[in-house]
């Protein structure tokens, strides 16, 4: 197998991430696992946003529904394995039911419906005091035995992220991925080459809700508590910002975006009060000057670089 420079760097990074707990203090490990949770969540959004070209303004519903399903199930029945499977399953059910209605619309209407449906789920979870704990949510969610120490929890979020990211990468580069991208870029043309665009977009939404469901489980492992906040639309807006800052038309964009946003907010929150202001400025600068995001920007630089030295060879 011929490996090249890029794959080596990747393997080094993964090895470093796996061994991080030996090197870093426990707070940095906690922040790292938050990054892996958010990065997977952002990747799941970007499947429909960047590739599928759909304005999904409320992806947090799928993460929240999965986290709540796991927590409520485990609290009442206690069997972890079923809980872990149930989370993404419930997310997929929500993804399918919402998707069936969403694919009938496009553009702004699609976006508005995601907000309306998402906030409907938030309102029910927020108000169903007796079942979901209402505003308090579930302060402490039991986890399986093998996730009792923070290092084990960190490794779990990392492994979940690596496997899911690899799967998503494969999907994005699969025949289905190509058709999803095509439908996202030009729905009419896709129809005229016999692509059933409604079904392709629906499949995209369902897949994205599945991976958001997995990130919901990863979230519970990381935070060990759930509150209706995770279902509020602002949570979805924050992840949208992460995708854009990273670059929505690249695979790694959402990962880099999530890492940058979380690192900046974590470091900033230790020193200053106005984190939202910082995030706002970053988003403003990205939208105006770096619409392709950090990874898009770098790729263009390398791309021009290669093209440039080709001319001189």
């Amino acid at each position, binding site marked *: 197998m011929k490996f090249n420079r890029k794959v080596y760097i990747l393997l080094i990074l993964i090895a470093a991430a796996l061994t991080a707990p030996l090197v870093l203090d426990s707070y940095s490990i906690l922040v790292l696992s938050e990054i892996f949770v958010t990065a997977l969540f952002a990747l799941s959004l970007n499947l429909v946003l960047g590739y599928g070209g759909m304005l999904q303004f409320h992806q947090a519903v799928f993460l929240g529904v999965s986290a709540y399903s796991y927590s409520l199930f485990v609290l009442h029945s206690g069997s972890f394995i079923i809980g872990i499977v149930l989370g993404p399953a419930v997310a997929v059910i929500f993804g399918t039911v919402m998707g069936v209605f969403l694919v009938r619309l496009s553009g*702004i209407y699609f976006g508005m419906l995601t907000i309306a449906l998402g906030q409907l789920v938030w309102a029910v979870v927020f108000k169903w005091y007796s079942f979901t704990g209402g505003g308090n949510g579930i302060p402490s969610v039991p986890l399986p035995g093998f996730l009792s120490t923070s290092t084990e929890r960190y490794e779990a979020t990392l492994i979940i992220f690596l496997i899911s990211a690899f799967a998503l990468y494969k999907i994005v580069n699969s025949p289905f991925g190509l058709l999803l991208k095509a439908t996202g870029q030009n729905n009419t043309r896709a129809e005229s080459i016999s692509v059933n665009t409604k079904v392709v977009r629906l499949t995209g939404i369902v897949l994205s809700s599945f991976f958001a469901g997995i990130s919901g489980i990863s979230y519970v492992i990381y935070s060990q508590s759930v509150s209706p906040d995770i279902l509020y639309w602002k949570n979805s807006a924050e992840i949208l910002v992460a995708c854009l800052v990273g670059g929505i038309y690249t695979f790694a964009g959402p990962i880099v975006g999530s890492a940058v946003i979380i690192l900046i907010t974590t470091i900033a929150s230790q020193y200053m009060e106005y984190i939202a202001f910082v995030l706002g*400025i970053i988003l403003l600068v990205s939208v105006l000057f770096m619409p392709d995001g950090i990874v898009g920007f770098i790729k263009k630089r390398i791309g021009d670089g290669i093209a440039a030295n080709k001319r001189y060879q």
Partner: protein
Amino acid sequence: MDLSIVASYLLIGISRGMFYFVLAAGLTLILGVLKIINFAHGSLYMLGAFFMYTFIGIAGQGTGAFFLSAVMAAITVGFISFIIEQMLLKHLYGKEHLMQMLLTYSLVLIFGDSVEMIWGTDYYTVAMPKLLSGSYHIFGTYISKFYLLFLISGLLTVVLLWLYMYKTKLGKIARAVATNRSMVEALGINADATFMYAFVIGGVLAGLGGAIASPAVNITSQMGDSIIIKVFLVVIVGGLGNIWGSLIAAIIFGISESFGVLIFPRFEIAFPFAIAAIVLILKPRGILSK
């Protein structure tokens, strides 16, 4: 329930609806003309209330001072919208709508914190002007005079918007741009001017909404959040970009809420979202569409 109670609820419902319309009109105008959701609309509403607090501090407590401050606050927010449009939004017109919407969301984050930097984190409240405090004894119950403010500003908005849209050249172009922008540009008309006016009028209305609500609410950086979600839903039900549709939807929301206190069970907060979702699914163009 006897007739007078139903009448009292209708009056409260309509005046609440008028308040929602002041905010919804601006949002749907921007949506129709610029084809983007202005997430910053809630922040402009909040700014309206903060400027109102500052101007009332200068102008004093009299009723005349209240209305002067309200107008000043609305104009100030309109001016801020002008700067946003000219300095920021204008550069994105060719680009995808997602970028423009994310730009407005960045303003939500920036305004939220800058308000606390400028006015501090204490919270403010504006005293109710004498003319409007107390209540009328009509329909056998007490209707607070404050609703007068909602009614007047709502009607004012209806009239001014009608004049702008149907009686001014720019308004007609704005309507044309809303239906088919490329055609308008093909005829050599500069659509950008209508974008600027739509965004500024939207800002003025959001500021006015904040100013007239200031006596009744806590003026804080989070005040925009809950109301704006409601206004989004009014715009959806009314039909994106359809100003008169949002007027009817606003009144429906106002009345259903004011009766809701008596009838709806505890899940009352979920109903507006459900209504909006259903309307979007069945009639995406809103209740007035054919």
